[in-house]
């Protein structure tokens, strides 16, 4: 009954199927599950519905799945860094559902937390609100947004243990905790697998109950927008 697997491929064994939905952690190229994305690409699984804030770049991150035309639909807040995305979108090969970033994050949290819907003022009066239930609370108008539960969650953490406890590092945390809770099954890749008991119990961002499988991967951690000042 060990949760620990040797690599991305074995950790995904038996979990992938055409048309499934996947919540993928990461913001830009930071904190993305690089190894799992690569293994999903190699699996050849098709028609994926992916909830992820961004779509990677052409040759890294979720862009690798776009290259192979494995994605049917993205639920994202910003896809501006990916030209392949735009080509496939304009060719009608790829559907996009834009969600405001905070709404996407809250939808994933809600899905994982057993909340099928919540009201938010975000997007009221915009295209995003069209077709959604409107409701007034204390004189302000809000729209109903749905919780998102996905077939699979794929996340990248800094350290993890055999119980599935995960801890993230700096802004590489981003959407990963939400994707871990939103996945009916969640697979995590970690930079370092550590012995149970060595993580700070007050800083376990994803408790083990949310992680069914994990493995230690190697990570390129590509930087999208290197910006520096003089030393």
């Amino acid at each position, binding site marked *: 009954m060990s949760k620990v697997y040797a690599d991305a491929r074995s950790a995904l064994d038996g979990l992938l199927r055409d048309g499934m939905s996947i919540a993928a952690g990461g913001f830009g190229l930071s904190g993305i599950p690089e190894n799992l994305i690569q293994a999903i690409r190699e699996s050849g699984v098709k028609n994926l519905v992916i909830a992820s804030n961004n779509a990677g770049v052409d040759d890294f991150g979720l862009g690798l799945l776009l290259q192979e035309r494995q994605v049917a639909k993205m639920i994202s807040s910003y896809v501006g860094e990916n030209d392949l995305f735009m080509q496939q979108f304009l060719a009608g090969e790829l559907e*996009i559902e834009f969600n*405001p970033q*905070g709404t996407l994050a*809250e939808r994933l949290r809600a899905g994982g937390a057993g909340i099928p819907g919540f009201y938010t*003022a975000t*997007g009221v*009066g915009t295209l995003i609100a069209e077709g959604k239930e409107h409701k007034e609370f204390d004189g302000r108008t809000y729209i109903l947004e749905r919780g998102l539960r996905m077939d699979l969650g794929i996340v990248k953490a800094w350290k993890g243990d055999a119980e599935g406890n995960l801890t993230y590092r700096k802004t590489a945390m981003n959407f990963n905790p*939400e994707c871990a809770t939103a996945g009916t099954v969640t697979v995590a890749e970690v930079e370092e697998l550590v012995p149970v008991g060595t993580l700070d119990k007050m800083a376990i961002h994803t408790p083990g109950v949310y992680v069914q499988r994990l493995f230690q991967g190697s990570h390129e951690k590509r930087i999208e927008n290197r910006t520096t000042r003089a030393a």
Partner: protein
Amino acid sequence: MPWDRNQMAERAAAELQDGFYVNLGIGIPTLVSNYVPANYNITLQSENGMLGMGPFPTEDEVDPDLINAGKQTVTELSKTSYFSSSDSFAMIRGGHIDISILGAMEVSETGDLANWMIPGRLVKGMGGAMDLVAGVKRIVVIMDHANRKGESKLLRECSLPLTGKGVVDRVITNLGVFDVVEGGIRVLERAPDVSLADIEAVTEATLVD
């Protein structure tokens, strides 16, 4: 003489008060942090999950796990805390951030903001902009008063799809500072040697006293 980018940012910095929690948009708003008074304790929020954002790193400090909402590498400060995306937007949506300073394509005289989408052009997405304008206590826009064709960006009604409806409190342009008030836009300040006539000439929105 109209303000340049840096002067607009400097003017925007005067919107900050000591102790404020601030979210700055991409572009000119980023420059605002250069003009914060040294004795102010201002805390920058980055919506990807950071409170207390520091300056860009030196080449040695670059860390792929430490970026801002524009995906630029940044640094942390002693007061920094990190959190997840849902926690970050709980902070934003819940009205805990004092002010957000954002760029815009268009602002209407009722405070509507358009800054995410041009129909017929490639749509990249709204990112966190809709959440920011709906949730943050005060929204200040920095933008050029007119577009490259010389057409007003301060309009009766926005022509582009909205980011938020009735959300803008104040607009800082190269020509001056403008408040969204009952009935239209009020001129609060003018850039040096910019006359009211100069402003009227490139403003479609209703100007009121």
